[in-house]
């Protein structure tokens, strides 16, 4: 999995300078946020649904081994093949091997964060296999060599004029309209032929049901349905945390997910399949169970709740940081608040030490999370872990020193007097200079409250 190439503050500074990006983002996140608000508020039992979703995920993680073995047995019994992948390389190798065995030099893909996480397209390209993205937004990014900036709306940072110009250069020479309908039609024409001729389809998964071996995908465009039903061979990759104990649990999650993600009561396409069925859909099904750092996350008692995530992206749309910087600033396929706690845990805190600090701890993410991931608490936990490996000596000394001043009444009073001098300055020195870059200081009070009392 890709590690952030630079620190969050540095990446954020660059993204903030892009006014077009901020306008696109704001408009898009506002729209989805308002839709979510409306459809969530119409359910009286929303909090009970969140509790049920959270409880199911706690159960899955507490008994993961058992559920995984149950899932494997059920998939195998219904005619599918299960592969266990410790890391990205093992998962990619399975897909390449399946494609090569069928003589396929290309595969059609539906949108999948998990395949982005393992950089499947690059791995397949190295084997001479071309992976075509069939989700509208993913196609846009692939055509332009760009990468996703939002979990649900990967091309949220692009507007339709930019997309029209891109299509004119690539799949639809001569297109002049930037109407959504015409852009969609251009993509449809391009993709339809590929669906019909593909030998191998590749998908991720929203849920895997341990009880039955059923795989579930929810989507909006129908391209996923085509990827999973038209090619004779299907490879589905799912993270090991995607399991649900029973088929009945889908009742909860199919309410939580669409309302939280697209702000719809129900998503347009819900596909469920169990193994293979002669004469209906793929003849050969491969299921890859991916670890890639997840068992390491599971070992952390506080941090493991990040594995509850169902990738709805509600936390991105309400995040005041994400809505200013966009997803690229997070340097990972998992952006926003969930990315700030998931990425450092999946790849190791030392590789993304600034991400847990990319939050003002406002708590809006926790409030909307459909499976009640307490993101602020996990952020605090990861900040402590980041400091253990990465904090500068000067910062550590400053905090230790501040702690010492705060543990004695006289020392604390002396520090307050010192702070009052600081408040008189127009520009603060050293690391505090960032404060006065955009804010004036209020001037110093004559006496502290303590001095008034004493």
């Amino acid at each position, binding site marked *: 999995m890709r590690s952030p190439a630079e620190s*969050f*503050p540095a990446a*954020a*500074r660059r993204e*903030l300078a892009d006014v077009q990006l901020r306008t696109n983002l704001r408009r898009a996140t506002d729209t989805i946020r308002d839709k979510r608000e409306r459809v969530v508020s119409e359910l009286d039992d929303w909090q009970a649904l969140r509790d049920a979703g959270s409880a199911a995920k706690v159960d899955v993680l507490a008994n993961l081994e058992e559920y995984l073995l149950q899932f494997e047995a059920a998939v195998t019994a219904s005619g599918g093949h299960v592969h266990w992948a410790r890391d990205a390389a093992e998962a990619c190798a399975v897909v390449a091997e399946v494609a090569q065995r069928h003589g396929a030099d290309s595969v059609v893909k539906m949108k999948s964060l998990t395949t982005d996480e393992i950089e499947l397209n690059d791995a397949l390209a190295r084997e001479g296999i071309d992976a075509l993205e069939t989700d509208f937004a993913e196609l846009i990014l692939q055509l332009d060599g760009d990468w996703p900036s939002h979990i649900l709306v990967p091309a949220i940072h692009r507007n339709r004029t930019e997309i029209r110009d891109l299509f004119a250069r690539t799949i639809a020479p001569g297109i002049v309209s930037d109407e959504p309908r015409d852009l969609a039609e251009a993509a449809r024409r391009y993709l339809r032929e590929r669906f019909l001729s593909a030998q191998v389809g590749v998908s991720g998964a929203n849920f895997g049901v341990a009880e039955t071996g059923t795989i579930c995908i929810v989507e909006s465009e129908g391209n996923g349905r085509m990827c999973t039903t038209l090619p004779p061979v299907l490879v589905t990759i799912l993270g090991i945390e995607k399991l649900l104990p029973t088929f009945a649990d889908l009742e909860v999650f199919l309410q939580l997910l669409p309302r939280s993600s697209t702000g719809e009561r129900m998503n347009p396409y819900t596909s469920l399949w169990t193994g293979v069925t002669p004469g209906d859909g793929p003849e050969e099904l491969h299921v890859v169970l991916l670890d890639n750092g997840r068992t390491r996350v599971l070992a952390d008692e506080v941090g493991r709740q990040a594995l509850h995530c169902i990738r709805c992206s509600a936390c991105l749309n309400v995040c*005041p*940081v994400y809505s200013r*910087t966009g997803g690229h600033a997070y340097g990972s396929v998992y952006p926003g608040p969930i990315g700030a706690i998931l990425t450092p845990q999946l790849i190791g805190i030392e590789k993304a030490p600034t991400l*847990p*600090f*990319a*939050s*003002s*701890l*406002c*708590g*809006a993410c*926790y*409030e909307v999370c459909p499976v009640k991931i307490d993101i602020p*608490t996990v952020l*605090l*936990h*990861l*900040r*402590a*872990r*980041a*400091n253990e490996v990465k*904090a500068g000596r000067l910062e550590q000394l400053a*905090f*230790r020193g*501040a*702690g010492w*001043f*705060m*543990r*004695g*009444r006289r020392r*604390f009073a002396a520090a*307050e007097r010192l*702070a009052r001098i600081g*408040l008189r300055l127009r520009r603060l020195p050293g*690391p505090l200079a*960032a*404060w006065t*870059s*955009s*804010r*004036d*200081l*209020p001037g110093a*009070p004559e*006496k*502290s*409250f*303590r*001095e*008034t*009392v*004493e």
Partner: protein
Amino acid sequence: MFPAAGKATVTVLERLGHGVDFPKEQTCCGQMHLNSGYPDDARRLAERFVDVFGEYDAVVSPSSSCVGTVRELYRGALGLEHPVLGKVFELSQFLVDELGVDDVGAAFPHRVAYHPTCHSLRLTRVGEAPLRLLRNVEGLELVDVPRAEECCGFGGTFSSKNADVSSAMLADKCAAIEETGADYCTALDGSCLLHIGGGLSRRGASARPIHLAEILASR
């Protein structure tokens, strides 16, 4: 740092007939350390808090983020348990929910924007308490701030570690406050007010920051 809010808190509580004590051994609740990833230092300050305040019937503070730290995070993030933690209240919450008072007999003839700080909204969960108090202040005109519930961008050390993002959030917040034509912006946290006030001043805006306690103490 913000003596006016402390003095005003005492004024309001005494006006309502309550005895107020300021335990001089108190220092800092440790929020900064906890939020910045130094839980061991925070724990030592939390233990000190319990030592100093352990015997009181009620502990009242005009800072919702400090109250949230003590009441919610000492247990949730530091694993500290003590009966006094449940008796720590943010001022407006104490007045409205504990004392059943929503009119403190204050007068403040100005246009006021209320900023619901993130910690008062989502950690300390003060609900309608501050608004009920403000609506009963004589002469006060309460205005609605667009996107009121969005963070101002302070976030403790976030404001310097991620100064650019923090400033972008602050700019939007200040613009929203200016749009209301308010004379004052009030809130339950001195730190957010320091940030917002600093931003308003830098923009040359006429709106000034003021702590809710100061409004309630005015007459």
